[in-house]
């Protein structure tokens, strides 16, 4: 059901959080498809295959983007805006995954056409449950045209 190159792009500045996501994806045997970039600029470079990610073979187009909001250099919301304003990228589902439960952030994210907004729970079992549900939802149940 999923194409050969189904890649998940994780945009996360906090290495610890990236590790949490990676560990969860291991459960789905998808960890090898998870590509982690540490900031907004890097995410954009990856998507546009430029800078450090100029090699198209090493940076395949992702099928899903997990996006943190507080990012160095280019802010997560700006990344989201750039993706959704680009007709070539707008179709990629973007799941905002952040510690921020601020209403302004949520409103902004949906204004910029985020496909989902998830708040990282402080509680461990909840975080696990969220990642599991999120994984099932986006990787098993959700249908993609490619």
């Amino acid at each position, binding site marked *: 059901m999923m194409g050969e190159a189904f890649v998940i792009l994780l945009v996360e500045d906090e290495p610890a959080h990236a*590790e949490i996501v990676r560990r969860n994806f291991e459960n789905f045997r998808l960890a090898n498809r998870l590509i982690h970039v540490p900031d907004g600029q890097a995410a954009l470079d990856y998507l546009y295959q430029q800078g450090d990610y100029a090699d198209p073979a090493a940076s395949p187009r992702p099928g899903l983007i997990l996006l943190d909001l*507080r*990012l*160095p250099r280019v802010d997560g919301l700006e990344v989201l805006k750039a993706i959704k304003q680009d007709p070539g990228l707008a179709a990629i589902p973007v799941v905002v995954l952040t*510690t921020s439960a*601020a209403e302004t952030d949520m409103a902004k994210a949906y204004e910029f056409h985020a496909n989902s907004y998830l708040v990282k729970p*402080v*509680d*461990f*079992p909840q975080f696990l449950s969220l990642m599991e549900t999120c994984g099932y939802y986006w990787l098993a149940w959700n249908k993609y045209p490619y």
Partner: protein
Amino acid sequence: MAEQPSLEWRKPIGLLILAGFLMLAITGATADYLRRQYREEQAKIQTQLSSVGELKVRQIAQWRQERIADALALGRNRAFADLFQRAQVGKEDPKARALLQSWLESIWHQHAYDRIRLLDRDGQELLSIPAELPKPTAAILRGFQTAMAEGQPRFQDFYRSVEDQRVYLSIRVPIADPRNPQRMLGIAALRIDPALEFYPFISRWPTAAQSAETLLVKQEGQEVLYLNQLKFQADAALRLRFPLEQQDLPAAMAVRGQVGVVAGRDYRGKKVLADLRPVPDSPWFLVSRMDQDEAFEPFRQQVLGTILLAALLMLCTGVTIAGLWRHQRARYFQARYAQEQELAWLRQAIARSLNEICLFDPHTLRILFANDGAVRNLGYSREELVGMTMTDFKPTQSPDSFRALLAPLAAGEQETLVLKLTHRRRDGTEYPVETHLQLVDRGHGLRVGLALMNDLTEHQRILDTLQFSEQKFRTLFENLAEGVALHELVLDEIGSPLDYLVLDVNPAYRRHTGLDLDATRNRLGSELYGLAPPPYLDEFAQVAQGGLPYAFETYYPPMERHFRISVICPRPGQFATVFEDITERKTREDELRQKNEEMERFTYLVSHDLKSPLVTVKTFLGYLEEDLGKQDGERVKKDLLYMHGATEKMGRLLGDLLEVSRIGRVVNTPVRTSFQALAREALGAVAGSLALRGVEVTLDEVDLPLLGDRPRLVEVWQNLLENAVKYMGDQPGPRIHIGVERVGEHPQFFVRDNGQGIESRYHGKVFGLFEKLDARTEGTGLGLALIKRIVEVHGGTIRVESEGAGQGSCFLFTLPKAIQAQGEAR
């Protein structure tokens, strides 16, 4: 006073002229009609008369010819002559005699002759019809001889017979000898009795006219002789005669040779019309006449009818005109009645008026008339008042002073006088009055004083109340802290608001605006504020025209002040504005909003950035439990590492937060220091890391005295130096320069390095709270935010200059308050 229509009774000249004109027209038309009718009638009668005359004359002439023809038939007849010879006396031929007898009898019968005699040339009668006639007279016999001598048959004109005194005509026919026509054998005398045929024929008239008749006349000597029997005079034939000279007698005119229709007087002396003409081959004249009375009778009838009709018309016209006249008079009297009613009503109104009204003699000042109002107000009866003078109830006026007051009226300099006077009632109480004085012309050069007096007691009370109220509000107006201004809206030709006029402003207005009070009144808004259209015209116009109050807050750039403006509409087209200077409040509000925003952002960031390591710790604690259970040593070590990192981060974060919150809140006592001292202290603090990275540091030799929170100011340079070292990147020959330069108003400090540099798009972001450009570097992202706060506390600004990645960067900042404070302290 109601308008008085002029009510003079004017003679209806127009109506009279109209009537006259109509009468004239009717009369003229009638006369003209009658004249034409008369002419027509006359022509008709003339035609009738002349045709009758012509017919008769022709018939008479014919009759005469027939008679002559009869005579010739006997006188020139050979057979008759033979018979005559044979029957002559002496021959006694009875046969011939009988033949003659029957011949003559047939003529006698046929032609209605009266009698016929046959005589021989010696006057012996041969025979007669009827027989046995008396012997002819000698005169007749002489006539016979004359006729025989002439040898021609001839008419013996009308004559009166001596025998019976009747009028006859006769024809004498000589009978010629057939063998010798010159010789006469005898004579036949045919007598005609005109009464039998001729007279009736003459007197016959073709119409039924009563007075019409035909006369046959002839001249005899110097007279005119009537030959026939007349209608109105018996036995006139050959007896009635008139002198030929009688001018207007138609018969005489005919004999005198006049022909045609004439007017005249006939034998009866009556006015007649007559046709005159001679009868050919005879001495006779025919007069066909008719009485004018009868001839014009139908015309007279017509005249009468016409005149009656005209009279009727005139009567109608007269009646109509008279009706109109009456109507006008009725209207006039109606109007007069209404006017008098009005006058009566006015008189009553004046008498009953609440105002005091008096008429007085301007010389003696005696009251001539006082109305009910005066009676009621003054408390005197009307009779008492009329005996008094005007000054009797005016305690402040003497007769002389009052007359002096009237002087300008008497001199005609003024029409009316309005005075405030005092009246005293009969009971001695006094009250103020407003008196209108006037001298009214009464005709015949007489003038009467008219005084109209208004009790001002109530008026005065209201005035006092108003004055008190006015004073109250005036005081309020003058002392109000808010600026108040009253305006009137100025409209253009099509009614759109164009400008406004300042009517009044209070002192507070001047304080707020700085505009001079006297300079503002009656000036246009556009002039006053130097703006066209003037400020807030639309808002003000809406209130002035709509009437609903409106309030708004606004910043007025020309004065750099904030105002709260309340606009109300005291009357249409005007508006009052109440200005409240809210600049201070606004500034506070702005500051507060700024702080709030900052606070909000701060809490947001704190919650996020503190939550982030918390999530890490809690999650990895979970993993740690799992991994411990699984006895996975590698994983346990990793988990602990992540937790360690997170807690450390939290610790740093809390420390920095404390710092940030202290800036501006906790202020150390300002002390004197200098640029050199601060820079050197900072260099000392970071000497370790500078040496570690091998950075070459240079410092401007210039010094600048400063006054401020020394530890904080040191922190600025220290942090900038730490930053420079942290972002030196792979630079093989790292260098940092600390300096100060005078650019513009304030001295500008700077720290320049040749490290990584910053892309221009991040130049604004670097100073934000918790902003980091590189996720991998140490630090909380609060360093530059801290510096910025300190600089701002000292009234300065900070910015970064960098050519881009790898080009190094330079942080520049000012500290005006520290320098100013130094200047003041000196």
